[in-house]
């Protein structure tokens, strides 16, 4: 097999887009008439238009996978539509070599009234399989979907997870030279998603993949290069997947949490590793380095021994870690309305990504919330690997001489 074969060649690709709906229709009518009459339209922007994709170039060989990442509206979907041949570019050129398949919507062509079995044929035909091909692959599809018991009942009775399973099972039969994947694995249970990834791995052996996702662990798992898009342009492009992902994370706008500090308590000063964190920026911190928090609280004097609460949330606002004291008898002592603490967490083992810190104070015994300040500071954990789990535990591995 020749792995040097360039399958995808994209040069200086640009596409205009119009946000104003009425204007967009009007431009559409104009474009149709000039296209039908063979009049060449100009490349410059018209009123209310902007470049949804501007000057994107890349090449992909067999066995390579490029990850298109970026925020919503960065131009990823428009770029994909051009690659898939749905819409023409306004500037530049695309060359695709071989059979192109797209996993953009699972279960396209499904009719809810018809049975799963019938819809395998509908979906398969839409994806370009002949009836004969589907006949041959039917058993494999049903087996892959793991919903053989329901295959003869109408698809409208399926759960969304079952529809995804069936849709992917059909799509999994594709043997493309170029595969375009757009955020299709966001739903479905984790077991099935892993199964899908195994299938994608197998496809990748013989093809080039263009992968769009908001899930960085998925991107890190499969991609060999990254194209980070921002406002239609390439912000980062290269083989350093982890660098690309870090840049993607650093683009995130900070969401400052609700400051539910009552008169009972407040944070008067906060230092992270000796510096005051900018509430509107992510503080970079290397994985496995120590995290030191210096916090000064103002606490009403009625509460003599409040309890500290600290939690770490990931970018989906899921609570991934909390701090507890080692010594249950040790408590903070209110000194004329002030409490200063230093909290050291050695060797943080978070995986690469964005985290925010929530700080709170609870009254001793009663558990009354005196203070709860969400997203008081933001961390970006810098790491080489990007893995699925929120933690990678640091441990020691050694091989033993004999049997245990």
């Amino acid at each position: 097999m020749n792995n040097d074969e360039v399958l995808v060649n994209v040069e200086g690709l640009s596409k205009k887009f119009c946000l104003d709906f009425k204007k967009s229709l009007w431009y559409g009518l104009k474009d149709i008439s000039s296209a039908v009459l063979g009049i060449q339209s100009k490349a410059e922007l018209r009123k209310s238009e902007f470049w949804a994709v501007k000057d994107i170039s890349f090449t992909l060989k067999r066995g390579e996978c490029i990850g298109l990442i970026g925020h919503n509206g960065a131009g990823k979907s428009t770029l994909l539509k051009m690659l898939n041949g749905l819409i023409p570019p306004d500037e530049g050129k695309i060359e695709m070599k071989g059979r192109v398949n797209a996993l953009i919507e699972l279960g396209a062509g499904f009719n809810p009234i018809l049975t799963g079995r019938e819809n395998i044929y509908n979906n398969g035909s839409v994806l370009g399989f002949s009836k004969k091909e589907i006949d041959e692959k039917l058993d494999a599809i049903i087996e892959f979907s793991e919903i053989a018991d329901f295959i003869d009942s109408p698809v409208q009775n399926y759960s969304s997870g079952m529809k995804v399973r069936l849709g992917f099972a059909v799509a999994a039969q594709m043997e493309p030279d170029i595969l375009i994947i757009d955020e299709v694995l966001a739903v479905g249970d984790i077991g099935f998603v892993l199964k899908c990834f195994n299938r994608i791995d197998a496809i990748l052996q013989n093809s080039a993949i263009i992968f769009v996702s908001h899930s960085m662990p998925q991107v890190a798992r499969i991609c060999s290069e990254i194209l980070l898009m921002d406002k239609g342009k390439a912000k980062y492009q290269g083989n350093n997947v982890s660098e690309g992902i870090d840049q993607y994370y650093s683009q995130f706008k900070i969401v400052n949490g609700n400051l539910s500090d009552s008169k009972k308590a407040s944070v008067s000063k906060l230092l992270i590793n000796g510096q005051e964190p900018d509430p509107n920026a992510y503080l970079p911190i290397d994985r496995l380095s120590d995290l030191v928090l210096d916090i000064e609280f103002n606490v009403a004097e009625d509460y003599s021994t409040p309890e500290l609460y600290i939690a770490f949330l990931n970018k989906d606002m899921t609570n991934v870690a909390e701090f507890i004291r080692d010594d249950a008898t040790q408590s903070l002592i209110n000194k004329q309305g002030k409490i200063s603490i230093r909290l050291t967490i050695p060797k943080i083992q978070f995986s690469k990504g964005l985290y925010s810190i929530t700080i709170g104070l609870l009254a001793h015994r009663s558990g009354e919330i005196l203070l709860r300040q969400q997203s008081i500071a933001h961390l970006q954990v810098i790491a080489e690997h990007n893995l699925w789990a929120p933690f990678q535990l640091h441990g020691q591995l050694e091989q033993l001489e004999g049997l245990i």
Partner: protein
Amino acid sequence: MSSKNLKITTYLPNSSKTSFFSSLVAIFKDIKPAHELAIRLFKRDITSQYRESFLGFFWVLIPPLLTSGLWIFLNNNSIINVGATDIPYPLFVIIGTILWQIFAEGINQPLVSVRANKGMLTKINFPREALLLSGFYSILFNLGPKMFVLAIAFYFYKIEPALSLLYFPLGVLMISLSGFAIGLLLTPIGLLINDVSRGIGIILPFAMYLTPVIYPEPTNGNVALLMHYNPLATLVTSTRDWFSGHLTYIPNELTFIAGLTFLLLIIGILAYRISMPIITERFGG
């Protein structure tokens, strides 16, 4: 792997640069896969439609039968007088309204078929002509029950089977195709703006009364002049007369109309193919 010759697809700006001829070649190449997909989509739509319905075929027949019933009733009670017809009036009206229904379905179908699959258009690259074809297959399918009613009428009114009956399917096909061609030409614009399908809905019934569907073609006066320039009038009248055996040849006008229909179809398909990427772009999604 490297030994196999891979097809190279190139996308460039200004699809308009591609000539009409190369577009025609591309359409021709797509016919086979488009047909296969169209059959699938057609089966899907028909099966789901009938699985969800108890009356099924009946719905295809209701519009022409109701219209016929109304006019037969009005005429029998002398509320209106359409003048002498060379075949019994009920038969005249039934044939007329059914032929008109075929024309109307032809006009509506392309837009309906493409609209129904809008979601797929923005996501998947498949031969776009498949949607048109599957729409045309539904029209052909819906001809079945209509022809059945006509067969009953034929038997009931004891019409002598004449050789001209062989021309009748030709007439039906032409009526259907001429409607389809017009609908196809309206499709690109109709997909972008709603006004087109609304306009069709208003103009069609109006056009019916300007066509000898429920009354015979007058021989003089303004209406006669209008009929003279209405190609549909010729189509409907000739097809009806082939059915009843009153016309035994193919009039020259019809040959002309057939040529025109064919030309419009070709232009329509080309316009559809060229405009589809632009429409997909405006659909978003």
